[in-house]
Every structure is written in C-alpha cells, then in structure tokens.
C-alpha cells in the first residue's frame, strides 16, 4: 500500500501524466480560443483545473503513495477555504447591492 521511505515508481507513469497535463492545458486554452461562454465555460475551466491539480498532487507529488494520515492532513485543511469563499460570495453580493443602491451606478 505505501512505499514508506522510497518513492520509486516506473518512469512511464510520469510520462503519461506529463502528456495528460499537456492535453488538459491545451483543452483549457481552447475553451478561451473558441470563446465558449456562460456556464459551460466555467464548468469546463473548473473540470480541467481540478483534473490537472489532481494529477500533479497525486502523481508528481507522490501523494497517492503516501500514508493515509499524511494525505488527510494535507488535503482536508484546504477545503476550509471553501467556507471563506462562500462567506465572501455573500459579502460581495451585499457590497455590490449597496453600491448599486447608494451610488446608483
């Protein structure tokens, strides 16, 4: 399950992930190039972003071969940022509303 001290894996894994990262980056660039707009644009951007981030963290940073406790210690805390994001979404909507109402812009 885990490779303890030594993160030694077949080189083919890295080459495959490297290739995939290129493909995913090209795809996310093409989203902009072909002017995809609206919800489809946001959806595609986020999907490609998460896939790239996942590949980098899991394979290049060896996290999928690390001990479970280390994986949770690293992956769970950043999820708290989603709470901050949610709070700031409400705050920004409120600020925008007050600006529109009081500045009339």
């Amino acid at each position: 399950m885990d490779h303890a001290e030594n993160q030694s894996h077949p080189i083919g894994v890295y080459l495959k992930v490297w290739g995939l990262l290129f493909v995913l980056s090209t795809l996310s660039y093409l989203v902009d190039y072909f002017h995809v707009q609206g919800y489809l644009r946001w959806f595609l951007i986020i999907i490609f972003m998460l896939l790239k981030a996942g590949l980098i963290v899991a394979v290049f940073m060896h996290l999928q071969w690390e001990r479970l406790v280390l994986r949770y210690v690293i992956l769970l805390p950043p999820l708290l940022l989603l709470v901050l994001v949610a709070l700031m979404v409400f705050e920004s909507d409120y600020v925008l509303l007050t600006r529109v109402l009081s500045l009339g812009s």
Partner: protein
Amino acid sequence: MAHQGTAGYTAGPSAQAEGWQEIVTDLSADRKAFRNVPWGKAMMWLFLLSDTFVFGCFLTSYMSVRMSNTVAWPNPSEVFALTIGGAHIPLILIAIMTFVLISSSGTMAMAVNFAYRRDRARTAALMLATAALGATFVGMQAFEWTKLISEGVRPWANPFGAAQFGSTFFMITGFHGLHVSAGVIYLSVVALKVARGDYERKGNYQIVEIAGLYWHFVDLVWVFIFAFFYLW
C-alpha cells in the same frame, strides 16, 4: 504493506490497521505522527499547506473585488493577447507560460525518479533543465509585466476597466513569480550539490524529492491562477 518500524518503534498488532483505523493509530501512537515519512518531507508539506492558504486568500480577495465591482472587469483574453506575425492570438503568452511550467514539472518528476536510481549526472542535468525552464517562465512574466505597464496598467488604475484588475494582477502574479524565482535558486543549489556528490556520500537523495515537492506546488498554484485569473 511492509512497514519497517523506524527507530524506537515496534510494530504491534495495531500497526496493520487500514483506513480510518490506520489514521487513528498513527495519530494516537506516542511517537511522531507520520510514520516512515522523513521529517524534511513532512515539514515541506506543512510549509506548502500554509502557502496554500496564502494563495487561497489572494484568490478569494480577487474573487470578492471582481464580484462586488460595478465597473466591467477587463477581458483577460484581450488584455493578454499578442500579435505574432500579423496574427492576433488571444492569451497566447499565458498559454506558452503554462506549457513551459508544465514541462518544468515533468523534468522535475524525472529528476526525482533518477535521484532514487542514484543516477547523479541525469538528476543534476534534469534539475538544471527544470531551473532553466523556471527562469524562462520568470523572463516571460517580466515581459508580460513590462508590456502591461507600458500600456498604462497600474495597481490603482488601468485603461481597460475595473481599477482592481491591476492590483490583483500584480499581487497574485508577482507573488507567484517570487515563488518561481526562489524555486530556481533552490533547485540550482540542490542540483549543484547533487552533481558534486554530496548526497552520494550520505547515501540519501530525499532532498531532491523535497525540492521537487516545492516545484510541483509552484506549478499547482499556476494551474489555479491560470483558471481563475486568466480564463474566467
């Protein structure tokens, strides 16, 4: 499932636990929490975790100034377009920068692999290639900054739209560029030490993987900046 007990640890029956049980045993054992994870690596991960929050705060603040703005946000696709050979290509410089950084991540992953095979020459060469690609990235970023500044983009104003575009752009890409620059220096130092044979004498190439973690993190942050700042 081969858990070689590290110094001072004797593997009891609970050492074979899996899933949540394994996490509980690891955290409640009266010993260091990350069994078989070298200290350097655990500490690098914790540093990267704290850095995640720094960039997380930057991107969240960018989100809130953009969402609450009554002035239209500049279209990054147009702002970062270049005219190459008469053709107007949107966002091309950023796309090239992305590919350069991903290439550098690939060479770094290879370097870590060769380090564990004790291939000193290839490890050092691949690390120096990674550093060179990183330096290329910083150079292109300097070009991008120069171009935008000459077009009148300032942290407090710009000719394209919402004033906050400038401040968030310089803050986020500047901080990321600083990380890349620091990484280039870090990798170069480690590569020279690898080439000199320092780690051969110690018989421990862990430092290459630790430096690699930092470098992949820099690439990881760029993935998020590319998606949220340039493509959104």
